[in-house]
């Protein structure tokens, strides 16, 4: 029983699912950018310019949902990239859950520290830099 649904197998599935979902969003996003010829009020050539000043800093994450409904390629790619970022984070959550079930306190604490670092980078650091 336990062998079938152990942490390794679940981790493996999460990783695979995360990568595939993320890639699908990225591919759809790129296709939409080419079809619409623009995204988020920037032209395709502005978005594609290697020296473009249009970068992640100007893409608010709150715009993802409306952007996806409006079939905006920029936000599909953004969604894909953030799913990619969240994939390994989900794995840490799974590990935390499994360590809790196995009553392994030192590894519960360690997983929490890793998650703390991840969310510190995500939430606290950007506010310190602005």
């Amino acid at each position, binding site marked *: 029983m336990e062998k079938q649904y152990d*942490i*390794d*197998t679940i*981790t*493996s*599935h999460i*990783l*695979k699912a*995360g*990568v595939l979902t*993320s*890639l699908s969003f*990225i*591919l759809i*996003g*790129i296709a939409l*950018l*080419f079809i619409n*010829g623009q995204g988020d009020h920037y032209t*395709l*050539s502005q*978005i*594609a310019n*290697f*020296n*473009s000043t*249009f*970068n*992640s*800093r*100007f*893409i608010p994450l709150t715009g993802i949902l409306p952007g996806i409904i409006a079939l905006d390629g*920029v936000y599909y*790619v953004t969604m*894909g*990239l953030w799913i*990619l*970022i*969240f*994939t*390994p*984070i989900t*794995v*840490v959550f799974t*590990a935390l859950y499994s360590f809790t079930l196995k009553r*392994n306190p*030192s*590894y519960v604490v*360690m*997983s929490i*520290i*890793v998650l703390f*670092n*991840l969310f*510190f*980078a*995500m939430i606290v*650091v*950007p506010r310190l*830099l602005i």
Partner: protein
Amino acid sequence: MSAVLFILAKFLLIMAAGIIAGILGSLTGLGGATVLVPLLSLFFSVPIIYATGASLISTIATSAGSASAYTKKKIANVKIGIGLEMATTAGAIVGSLTAVYVYAHNFSWTIYVIFGVVLLTSLIPTIHRGKYEEPPHKQADWWTKVFQLQGSYYDEKLKKNVSYTGVRWWLAELIMFFAGVISGLLGIGSGALKVLGMDWAMNLPMKVTTTTSNFMIGITAATGSTIYWYEGYIQIFIAAATAIGVLIGSYLGAKVLVRITNKDIRWLFFAILSFLGIEMLLKGLYLGKFIAFGPSTEIFISSVSAVLMITGLYLHQKRGGMIGKTV
């Protein structure tokens, strides 16, 4: 219409760079990003900021892609990985913040220099890696018991269960912190340092080391990526192309790797990587106004030194015996 085709060609070109980086990265064991950053910044004139941003995010894709296979086979040790991630994630925060400082003060030439040095120095442990499958047995220490560093896996080649005992956990944590800093600073997975931490410091078998490192790289890169995102180092067009490209490339690389019987061919790849490393170093010194060569002289110097360096390492290994038993 032709403008759209031109942009499409640009996308495919960056994707192709990603594929090449993925193949070379997995064949040498250094990871796609280590090849991608020099390719993009030296040959595609992508600003180093965007090159590292795209690489860091692509690193997550390859790490997750390959780790999904290894964790299922129970070779990667998730427990040891999570424990060491405390240090790599903290290091990644420090590294990315250092990158923010460096770019804000126009010191980006230092990124080229550090990149070149890191690439060249990580080639050496990578070349010497894998001389033995099982590490010499070491007595369990205090850390082994407290952090439950024992484990085992089934080795398909040896057709037996290999059990191992991890030691010197504190030393590995220290090395992992630096691996994290390098990852956040340069936008790479810094797998070579992670392997050093587990192979040399903790005395783990090579297979456990490489697969656990692969699993860890994604978590480290995710930490740096969020800071890169808010700072605007990620140009989504480039990042989209490289994420797809590197993933395809490392998948192909892993397939090819199984078929390569003549291990000497790997030396050609090592030569290409050392060329890229020296080029990065020279470009950094040029941008920092320490040297003033023309581009052709720069390529000449890089090629000659790359050939010399790899020939030297090749002869050194041949003399030392036990070559070709890698991977």
